[in-house]
């Protein structure tokens, strides 16, 4: 418990720094928000009036403190574009990306774990080569291209799945899932390849350890040795990678979201940057930073479940 509290407290300055960084970067972007919002034909008076209304004429420190004050009261502000509360926008978009991330991650695991195990235990054999070639392809094929190919085959030619679009899960679960399968697969291929390579090398290392030889010499079958003894110990680096992967996916699915027209969190941030809707960007990045902190914490807690020798709160934290 003390560990948890300490970790969370440590996160506070990190998040604080992130907010300052994002705030300053957004304000350094060329392109005045008022001009961008009002567009090509706006007369200068209208731009000036909007700048005043948005508080853009205040000193930047004042603008930051004003925003921070709102955040501390749980108010992330209102979108400069359509006046929606930023918290609503995040609440709409984040679950979409969370679903996409979880689905992508599960599919990646379902592919990576068997492939990784087969490849490690049949090292140098035909099935290892097949798995390795698939993994190399998965890492080298750009996911947007793979996504397009999936669309052409499964949506346009075969008509099994919609080419794009999104239906909220609670509105129509079946439509939601059919629309999400292609984007999940398109992204999962690459992630699966990374995880599979990671698991393979980690397993190979563990398999050469003394205790594995001992297990074999006691006459245990390979299946038991691999699954019961080796696999669990090989998981630590895989879990670390998975944590980074999930954190990365939450904010980094924007290409998949764009191709499949999915109203996700990554797309919200990118769209808002182009619209100079910096209030939304700040709110979204803040939430994103929080998520990364939470996921890292979860990863650390997972280590001790996998390997009791790792004690969270001791050693590593020091």
């Amino acid at each position, binding site marked *: 418990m003390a560990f948890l509290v300490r970790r969370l407290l440590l996160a506070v300055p990190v998040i604080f720094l992130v907010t300052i960084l994002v705030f300053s970067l957004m304000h350094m*972007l*060329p*392109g*005045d928000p008022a*001009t*961008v*919002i*009002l*567009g*090509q*034909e*706006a*007369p*200068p*008076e*209208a731009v000036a*009036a*909007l700048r005043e*209304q948005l508080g853009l004429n205040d000193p930047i420190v004042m603008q930051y403190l004003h925003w921070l004050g709102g955040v501390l009261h749980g108010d992330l502000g209102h979108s400069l*574009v*359509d*006046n*929606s509360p930023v918290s609503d*926008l995040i609440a*709409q*978009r984040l679950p979409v990306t969370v679903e996409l991330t979880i689905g992508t991650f599960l599919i990646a695991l379902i592919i990576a774990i068997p492939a990784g195990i087969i490849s490690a235990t049949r090292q140098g054999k035909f099935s290892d080569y097949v798995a390795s070639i698939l993994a190399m392809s998965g890492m080298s094929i750009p996911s947007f291209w793979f996504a*397009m190919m999936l*669309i*052409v085959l499964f*949506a*346009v030619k075969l*008509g099994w799945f*919609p*080419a*794009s*679009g*999104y239906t*909220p899960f609670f509105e129509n679960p079946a439509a939601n899932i059919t629309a999400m399968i292609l984007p999940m697969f398109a992204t999962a291929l690459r992630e699966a390849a990374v995880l599979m390579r990671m698991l393979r090398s980690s397993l190979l290392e563990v398999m050469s350890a003394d205790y594995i030889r001992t297990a074999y010499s006691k006459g245990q079958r390979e299946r038991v040795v691999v699954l019961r003894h080796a696999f669990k110990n090989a998981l630590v680096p895989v879990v670390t990678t998975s944590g980074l992967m999930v954190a990365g996916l939450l904010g980094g699915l924007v290409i998949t979201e*764009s*191709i499949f*027209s*999915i*109203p*996700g969190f990554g*797309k*919200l941030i*990118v*769209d808002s940057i*182009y*619209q*100079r809707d910096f209030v939304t960007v700040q709110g979204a990045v803040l939430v994103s930073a929080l998520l990364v902190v939470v996921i890292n914490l979860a990863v650390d807690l997972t280590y001790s479940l996998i390997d009791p020798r790792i004690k969270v709160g001791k050693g590593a934290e020091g």
Partner: protein
Amino acid sequence: MKKPLQLSFTFLLAGALIASAGCSSSNSADTSKSDAKPATNAVKQGGTVNISLDADPPKLDPSFSTALVDRMVFQSIYDKLVDLDDKGNIVPMLADKWDVSPDQKSYTFHLHPGVKFTDGTDFNADAVKFNIERYMDKASTRRNELQAVDKVSVVDPSTVKIDLKQPFAPFLSVLTDRAGMMVSPAAVKQYGDDFLNHPVGTGPFVLKDRVKGSTLTLEKNPNYWKEGLPHLDKVVYKIINDSNQALNNLKSGQVDITNVFPTKEIPNFANDPKISVVNQAGQGFQGMHLNASKAPFDNAALRSAVDLMIDRDAIVKVVLNGAGTAGHSPFAPTQFAFGDTDKFERPNVDKAKELLKQGGKPDGFSFTLKIGTTPTNQQLGQMIQNMLKPAGITVNLEKVEFGTLIDQAKNGNYEAVQLGWSGRPDPDQNLYDWDVTDGTQNYSRYSNKDVDTLLQSARVEGDNNKRKELYDKAMQILNTENPYLYLYHSNNVFGLSKEVQGFVYVPDGLIRTATLSK
């Protein structure tokens, strides 16, 4: 950026539009927009049409809207005092008829009786007054369009009079678009700043549900004032940023109409059994501003030298795949001001070198051309770069994200910038603000008293023949001085499922949904 987000503001970068090859608008059921027309038995009732848009409409309030995609959705939600027909003529909509005073300074509109907003309140002269005054407010992006308006008076519940400070020829044209859209005063009072998330008009459809960044679902207005319309139960706008992906959706049936069609694909759909392509002249133009306030383009001879080296036909062929028309004026072929001033010379190196000599740069010069980030922008930039080389003019291309591009253009922080305009029905709306001294889109910072006088006279003149003479004179000066280099007139290109009936192409390129059926 695409668009991502891109904000497709009311104009499009070169990428967005184009085209003109064999187009076929899909089918029948046309004309019904000018007036109520009973549905014939032949027209299927009910059903849903899905329309893809290339960006999420940022502001569903005509008073604050700046984006082209907003206007697309407005056609379903709001009606206007007057509309455009398929030829681009101004026809009645919420105003059955109107009288113009002999001095052209007073317009009296006779409103269609018995029209209600979709919140149940009455549409009447008070509502018109409310709306026009709201658009004249300092905060409204419509203010510039209505600057000629002096006052709005309610004559009786179905008659409203608008007095102008001076005659303003484009006035009715302005009212065919956002400045003429009638929103519910009661809803504006109820929702205040949040009205744009609760839009209420008198239109054929009502916004029911919106998933930001994904879909807008509109349902039929069961009490729509035009008898027999709309035919559909639902219109769903789907946000699909990429035009190829929109086409995939059209092929697989998730989308029935796409608002942007990839021009490279046009020839592949000439005989497609399921999909037709509408490829028609729009009202917009593309070109580049040259900054006349600083070197090198404060020198008209150098501007003209650049102009003379550009092969417009090649641009239309390569960049637009033929879906557009090379030109040298801001006037669309459908506008009365269109004519000889649109003609241009073929590239001529000798003459260009002569101009360079006149401009004091006999060995050529170099400049930076700022362009947007779409592949089309880039292709256009590279073509211009290559076309200028033979005259010794070196072009440095600088790709700039769209929001920044506008900002830099407005602030004069550029030498040359490629920016176009989606176009409006009246010639004034395609020219005045670009070339009049201190005009809102005069990014070239050009100033010429004769041009100012001619453009001013053209907007107060009521007779179109006389106006054309004034525009001809202004364009003769502008085509010599070249503060803005016109390159081509964009087409509007839509992809359309053959199951959709009743599509009417209107030159403003906005899809009227009331007459659609499927």
